[in-house]
């Protein structure tokens, strides 16, 4: 009975939502309000104004940089939230369930991971640094970095993971995302420009483009390192169990 009511209500909602979306212009049309209003300027001028060949990167770092700053803060918030709920891991007090069960990892897995680890990290760095030219950027690279931390720790054991990625560095690196944004953004204030402006007319014209690249690079690296560390730290916080 109750289930029937739920399904019926959801069906009504479905009809409403579908009616709402099919009232939109047909998919793939280039005459839609969305495609004709703001987008043309981005498509035409982004490379010149934003300084990135990847228009999406240009938008997230430049036109909508404030959003991305918020987004970076969301990841940071997620970490703080997880820590607030579960607490930080402590190398003296904590271990993982897997370690407790003392199942030996196969040698093949260990060697493969050992072999691949440098390449994964290299790949992540490539994605971070080339965000402006190709698909990818800080987040994607950061996620891969974080994943590599997880894979490493799962393979070589929780305790070793905690030793290799010590808390005192992670505490600082976790904040890298918001801080890099702040550092890059606040420079403009000293030139009398609005926050997050990267093109600074108050410095020598020849260096303007370079400075902009530098600032964007700081942000990309900050997001990447910060995001990766956050994912790693979340993993540590969730995986840990008390010794005894």
């Amino acid at each position, binding site marked *: 009975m109750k289930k029937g009511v739920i399904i019926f209500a959801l069906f009504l909602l479905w009809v*409403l*939502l579908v*009616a*709402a*979306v099919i*009232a*939109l*212009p047909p998919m793939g049309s280039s005459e*839609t*309000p*969305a*495609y*004709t*209003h*703001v*987008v043309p*300027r*981005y498509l035409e001028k982004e490379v010149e104004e934003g300084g990135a060949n990847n228009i999406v990167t240009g938008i997230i770092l*430049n*036109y*909508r*940089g*404030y*959003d991305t*700053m*918020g*987004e970076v*803060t*969301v990841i*940071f*918030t*997620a970490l*703080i*939230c*997880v*820590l*607030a*709920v579960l*607490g*930080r891991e402590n190398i003296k007090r904590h271990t993982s369930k897997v370690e407790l069960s003392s199942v030996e990892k196969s040698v093949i897995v260990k060697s493969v991971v050992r072999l691949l680890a440098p390449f994964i990290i290299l790949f992540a760095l490539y994605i971070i640094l080339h965000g402006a030219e190709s698909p990818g950027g800080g987040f994607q690279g950061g996620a891969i970095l974080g994943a590599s931390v997880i894979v490493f720790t799962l393979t070589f054991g929780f305790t070793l993971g905690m030793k290799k990625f010590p808390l*005192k560095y992670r*505490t*600082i690196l*976790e*904040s890298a*995302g*918001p*801080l890099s944004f*702040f550092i890059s*953004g*606040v420079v*403009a*204030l000293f030139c*009398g*420009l*609005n*926050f*997050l*402006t*990267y093109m600074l007319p108050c410095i020598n014209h020849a260096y303007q483009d370079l400075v902009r690249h530098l600032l964007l690079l700081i942000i990309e690296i900050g997001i990447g390192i910060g995001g990766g560390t956050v994912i790693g730290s979340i993993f540590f916080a969730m995986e840990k169990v008390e010794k005894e």
Partner: protein
Amino acid sequence: MLEFSQHCPVLMTITLLVGAALTPIVSRFRKKLSFLWAMFISLLSFFFCSCATWRLYSEGPISYWLSGWEPPYGIEVRFDYVSTITFLMTGLGVLIIFYSRKYIEHEINEDKFSLYYTLVLLLLCGMVGFSVTGDMFNLYVFLEILSLSGYALIAITEEKLNAMASFKYLVMGAISSLSILAGIALLYNVTGTLNMADMALRLQQFPPILTSYVALVLFVVGFSVKAAMFPVHIWLPDAHALAPSPVSALLSGLVIKVGIVGMIRILYTVYRLGGNINFIPVTNFMGWLAAITILIGAFFAFFQDDIKMIFAYSSISNIGYIVMGISLVSFTQPEKGYLGMVGGLIHIFNHAIIKSTLFLCAGALIYKTGFRKLSDLRGMGKKMPITCGALTIASISIAGIPPTSGFICKWYIILGAIEFGKWYFAAALLIGTLLVFAYYIKIVNAIFFREPNEPITKVDEAPMSMLIPIVLLAIGCLVLGVFAYLPLAVIRPAAATILGLPSTYIPGG
């Protein structure tokens, strides 16, 4: 000064954001530093907010283009009259952080202190950012920051039921965020822009289609969950009652108001009165829901014995007042909705102050006695006269007895309801306030006029760091009521501009 004050709307958000990011690093040096740091950051942000408010009332609304891109190409931060709520947020934030110093020793593990301050700063950052932004998607991002930190702050203690309350809040909050995101997506496809002002313009240009209406419904549903309207209020009582008291004060005082601010932005900035989408059926429906919310909240509060649970239910009831106030509008005659709007907006401010007082007082009682049931708190009035006195003032205030601050909204909303001939709304409001008073008098009776179950020993007045915020807020309850023209001077332009009237509008004049 003028040059500098223009940056303030964004600086106050950034300060909180960067301050939060630095808190864990700062606390690595000295554990105690995190409190001082949080105090410093919140004061700095309050200072920036004051500058921005000062500029707003001398120069008019501030439109700040992030990265220098003009809207709709870049993100616009807009400090308008509605954004004055940030003044309240940062100010209350300072007091609550100050209050927390002693209090959290009682409920939170010591190694989580710095996390607590980080989360409070993030929560403030989310609220401030949310209230000043002029961009729809930016609104969503800040909404997420504040929601996430809100969920975590409830579960930061080791109590058994907290994680469950937090999870309930999280599930409903996540669905509501998603509903808002879906609304943004639909509206983006209708208008092709994310800037609110531009969206409003573009909505007028195209003939209205079903999608716009569905988006509106999604927005209203989403923000109703955040504001804890009936029937999606069910997450609120547990979450607000179980959270540490300063957090309850923040959540009840400010976070649920964010839902209201969101509704105001959507309805009156984006969809706009007098545009080509008539949303009056929606506001009418909201008005009815608000009436039910008032009664339901007041009714359930009546059966609670847990002091914080009473406050939590009364928050639901008070959200009803606010929503009722802002839903009393007319599509074609904007000036008709003025009175109700003033009533709703003023209660956003007053309720924040009153409810914070109440929760902080409850916190002081819990801190000193460890009890939270009314029956255990009997006779505390003699032991903690200042705390209980403040609690009484706030109770009278929230019952809307003149000349305290809770009365003003009652007066305006009743006038607004009469303006629309909806006397039954006024009746619901009055019945609601009577019920409210009935259970607040229960509290006052218990702490002042009943004999304690067993003689109280070893209980004395709360420490100074708790008393100062409590007393300041209690004075606020009185002063904002007696000198009501002060907050009203701030609110009137807000109400007028929301309705599309000139900011100097005076009814009948």
